[in-house]
Each structure stands twice: as C-alpha cells, then as structure tokens.
C-alpha cells in the first residue's frame, strides 16, 4: 500500500525525451533482485553511469545533478514508459522516491503500473511542460483538484480516471478496492462451485 497522494510540491527533474522505454528506465541486466526493492541502482542505468554495468556517475545525466537530488517529480516526453510491461521500471522509480511523472502521454500498461504503485501519471501538453522546465522552480500537483501549478500563478488541469484518482488519494491499491467486494466474490464463487465444481481443485483434493 502506497502513501496517500494528496498535494505534492517538488522541483521537477527534466528528462524530456520521447519514447523512454522500460528498458531505459531499468535495463534487464539490472533486474538482479528477486523482489520489488533493491532496484534503485539500476534506475536509468544506461544513462546514469559512464559505462555499462559500471557505477561511476555520468556527470552529464540529470539524475547526477545535485540540484535534483530531492526531486519527487519527473518531467518526461511523449509515450513515457513504452516497451515491455515489466513492472520493475515502476518499482525502481517508486523506490528511488519519485511520486509523479508529468508527460504529454504514457504507455497504458506503464500508467496502470504507476497507479498500482503509488505514482501519479500526469498528462500535460508539451507547451505546459516546456514552461515548467524553463521556470526551473518547484511545481505543485494537487490531485484532488486535478491541477498542476507554478508558484507564479500558472495553472493547468490534467485528466485522470476516477478509479485511479481514488486509489492514489486514499493510498489504496487495487487489491484493497477489490477486497471490499469480498462478499460479491464469495456469492459468485458459491454459485460457480455448483455449476463448475471441477474448477475448484481444493475441494477434490
């Protein structure tokens, strides 16, 4: 279960490239952990270090710029998170501390994985993202109001599906939401067990 997402203010880290895929977010050679944690070293490893498999920081990569050490928000390009459905990409981002990504569009599976792991995918027009980048100032994301704003007064609305919104706001994950329907599930299964007893293997064991 993720921490509820209400209002977040942070200096965003600009990584405005189109089609950043999950292999760039975490290369498969860096997926060494059997769990969802222990992945932060692999985050953006191909860009972040001077050589493949190495750990020498590449000074030219934005993640190694001390100014963004505490960033909780990434500014991205179109089709963010495309490529394979590997959830490790989102786990690595979440473990590192990112809570929101602002981009003109997201790969659908990646966006779903973000919501499931407490990261808010914010869709804004490229012009708005350019203004935010240029301002080099903290932005505030208000999930309840569905807005992104700069201290100077600029303000943009972003779209988000109801279910994703309530999951993030309450820090609920999809499992919590579905477990609230335990009764319906049990009723359905009771009827189904009578109709298709062979599906319920435990009963025959």
């Amino acid at each position: 279960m993720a921490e509820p997402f209400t209002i977040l203010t942070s200096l965003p880290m600009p990584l405005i490239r189109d089609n950043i895929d999950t292999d760039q977010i975490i290369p498969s050679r860096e997926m060494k952990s059997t769990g969802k944690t222990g992945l932060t070293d692999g985050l953006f490893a191909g860009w972040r270090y001077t050589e493949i498999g190495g750990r020498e920081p590449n000074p030219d990569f934005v993640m190694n710029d001390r100014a963004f050490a505490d960033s909780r928000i990434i500014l991205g390009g179109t089709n963010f998170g495309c490529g394979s459905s590997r959830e490790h990409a989102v786990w690595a981002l979440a473990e590192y501390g990112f809570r929101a990504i602002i981009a003109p569009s997201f790969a659908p599976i990646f966006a779903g994985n973000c919501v499931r792991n407490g990261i808010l995918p914010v869709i804004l027009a490229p012009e708005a993202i350019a203004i935010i980048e240029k301002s080099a100032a903290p932005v505030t994301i208000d999930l309840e109001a569905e807005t992104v704003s700069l201290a100077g007064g600029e303000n943009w609305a972003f779209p988000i599906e109801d279910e994703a919104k309530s999951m993030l706001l309450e820090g609920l994950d999809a499992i919590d939401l579905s477990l609230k329907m335990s009764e319906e599930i049990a009723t359905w299964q009771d009827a189904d067990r009578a109709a298709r007893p062979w599906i319920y293997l435990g009963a025959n064991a």
Partner: protein
Amino acid sequence: MTGNKTLFDRLWDSHVVTDLTGSGALIAIDRIFLHERTGAAALNALAEAGRKVADPARVFAVTDHIVDTLPGRTDQTLMPGGQAFIQETRAAAKAAGITMFDVNDPDQGIVHVISPELGIVLPGCTLIAPDSHTCTQGAFGALAWGVGSSEAEHAMATGTLRLAKPKSMRVKFTGRLNRGVTPKDMILTLLAQYGAAGGKGHAVEFAGEAVSALDMEGRMTLCNMATEFSAMSGFIAPDNKTFDYLEGRRYAPAGADWQQALASWLVLRSDTNAIFDQEIEIDASAIVPMVSWGTNPGQTIGVDGVVPDDAEAAPLEYIGLARGQTIKGVPIDAAFIGSCTNSRLSDLRRASAMFQGRKIADGIKAICVPGSSSVKREAEAEGIDLIFKNAGFEWRESGCSMCFYAGGESFPDGSRVISTTNRNFESRQGPNVRTHIASPETVVASAIAGVISDPRDLMKSELI
C-alpha cells in the same frame, strides 16, 4: 447457434463477478501459474502486505525460465544470482501452500507446455500468469493471458482481476496448409500481413478450416504468438480434439464432473451471426514457410522472398541484411529448437524426420530443448534424442533455455541464429544476437545446409 455472441463474449460473461463503475468488470480468475523469474516477487509482496493467497489449490508454480538446461542441473544456474530466484520462489510457494513443479520434478517444463499436459488449463476457464505467452493456452478454448506482477498478486489475493473488456477479432484461416508449411508459418503470415500491432486492444479468436485441422499442439503454436500480434489473447473454440487431449489428465475433471464439464464446454463457440469488431481472412493454402528478417516478429517474409524494399534502416543494420536481399542462403552460426512456441513432441518428431541420416553443417552450434521433462522422456522413448544427437545437435533438459537472455547462457555475441522461438528482438537471445524465427522444419533444413533454407527443398526428393 442463433444469436450474435462471440466465443469471447461467452468466456467474458461467464466470469463477470460484478460490473465496475466506468471501468470494466471484476473478472473471476480460475487458474494462476507462476514461474521462478517473477514468482517470488509476487508471493513475497503479498506476504509482506499481510495478505493470503485466497485459494492456493488453484495456483501453481514452476522453474523454467532461469533454471539451467544442462544435464545434471541443480539450483545453481549460469544466470548471475539465478539460484536466489529459484530458491526464493520455492520457499514462497511452500509458505503459501502452492504446488510447485521444481527443478527435477518429473512434471517440470515450460509453464505453457506443462499446464496443458497436466490438464490445468481447461476449456471455458480463465487462466493468468505473469508471462506474456500465457495466451498459448487459449488453444483449449480458455481465456488465458499474461499479466504484470501486481495483477498476479491481485488475482491471488482476491480470485479476480479488474479488467476493461477488449474488443473482439476473428482471424479465419480458410483452406488447408500445404506440405512443409506449419502452424508457425500461419501465425508468422498473420504478423507479416497485419503487423506486430495488428491485434492491439483485441481478444482474437482463431477459426476456419485450417485451424480445425490442426492438432492441439499446432493450435498452441498458433495461439502462442497472439501476444506478438499485440492481442490481449488468442483462443480457439474447443472440439473433440480438445476434449480427447484433456481426458484423463491429472487436474482435468473426472467421472460425473467430466460429463458435466463436457456439456458446458460444447457451447463454447461463436454464434453463426456473431459480431466481431474486426475480421481477418487468410487463405491457408497460399501460406509458405516463413522467416523473420528484422527485429520484430511482423518483419517476416516467405523463405523464398526478399527483404522488403521499404524495410526500415535500424532493423536492417542490426540484422546485417540489405533491402532486396534474398533471405534463402544467408549463412547462419547457430540453430535453436525449443521454447513455448515449438518444443512439444509433435514439433520434435517433425523436426527429427527432416534429418534422414544427414548431419548439420560444420561449425553450427545447434541445440534442441524439449519443452517439458515429459516431452523429453517421450522423445527419448522414440529415439528422437539420438536422431538429434547423431546429427550434431545438443540435447538438453527442458526449460526456456536460450529462448531469452537473462545474463546467463547465450549464443555468441553477434551470432546469427535460426530459431523456433517467438521473439526476434535485439539481444533477445544474447548480446547482439541476430534471431530469425521460423518453424522447426525450417530450422533443421537450415542447420543442415548452414544457410537459411526452404524445408520444402529437402522434402522434395524424399518422402518425409
């Protein structure tokens, strides 16, 4: 049948627990299969959140992805850290009360090969696994598809998934396949004609004379690559071949349950007037043996064809071919027979029948990996292992093996491999390895010649 329901509607409707406001439905999940690459992560995350697997009897786990396929294998693997994946999955499965087909279990094998062998997948069931080729099992008239880790956790904890209903598509293969042409060539033809994104957002029913004519193993090969077509899943209406295959398998219903199940399975088909969001028709008698030329499975041509004139530069550069070049005759370094696409007994029988005493060309590294321990035993009982070995192939223990590269064993850097697998992505089978996907027959013909070859040329002279 009258009405206008599709098979997909029937599979979907029969699993709707409740509709969700504005976002699809809560769908009941009948079977869950885990493997050691992601199983531990999903089970441990559940346990850490204090949640239980709702019905462990309907969850299974297997070691197939990382486990070595060399003889005498143990938990040690060539993949760095691989042992931890195996051991943690084993421990987590045990703690959750889940049946696991472990490293040297007689039922071990690639998840999508053993699930049907054991009768775990059944017509009309929903089956998920955190693995994109779960659609293979749609061959049994099941709704089977690959999910992410969190969804696997969700299904284990609740017995359901929250899903938006995909659109429906029917792909009809009319007519009959010619000799030397296989189900692999059918799916590669679909990919070549409609592209690797052609099935995006759709659940795909495969139908038509050529599909009905396939045996169950061929149907699995066809459904296996529905994910390469970007479909949510692929499936085929069950028929007597399906029922005959399943009857008597360990987890299939028996006795009165079997009779009741059969009755319910007979209605699993699309109505004559069923309405699909999209329909495609392909003449099976016009299909030829196919070989991929590029770095996605849609970049595929007939083995007697040439690399397209409008081929993109990047895949060409990677694969080291030129526009207009004939694919036949391109020298290969290696050959691979295996994977959840083409590693079943019928695949190995057809492939081994191609040798007729011939050996593979000098300098070719050739490997055959049976899809399950049971396939391996049956093949050995028929002497198929000796045919492969005498021809110069390595004969392995079952598993995913060199279908994918996870940092362990692989083909040499930059080598060119003709392979019965399903993905020709960059570095899929090892750093810079160039993969050409094809049928088992085409792989053997090419291994013998040392160059990409048309299996029909070998068959012409003899009665194979």
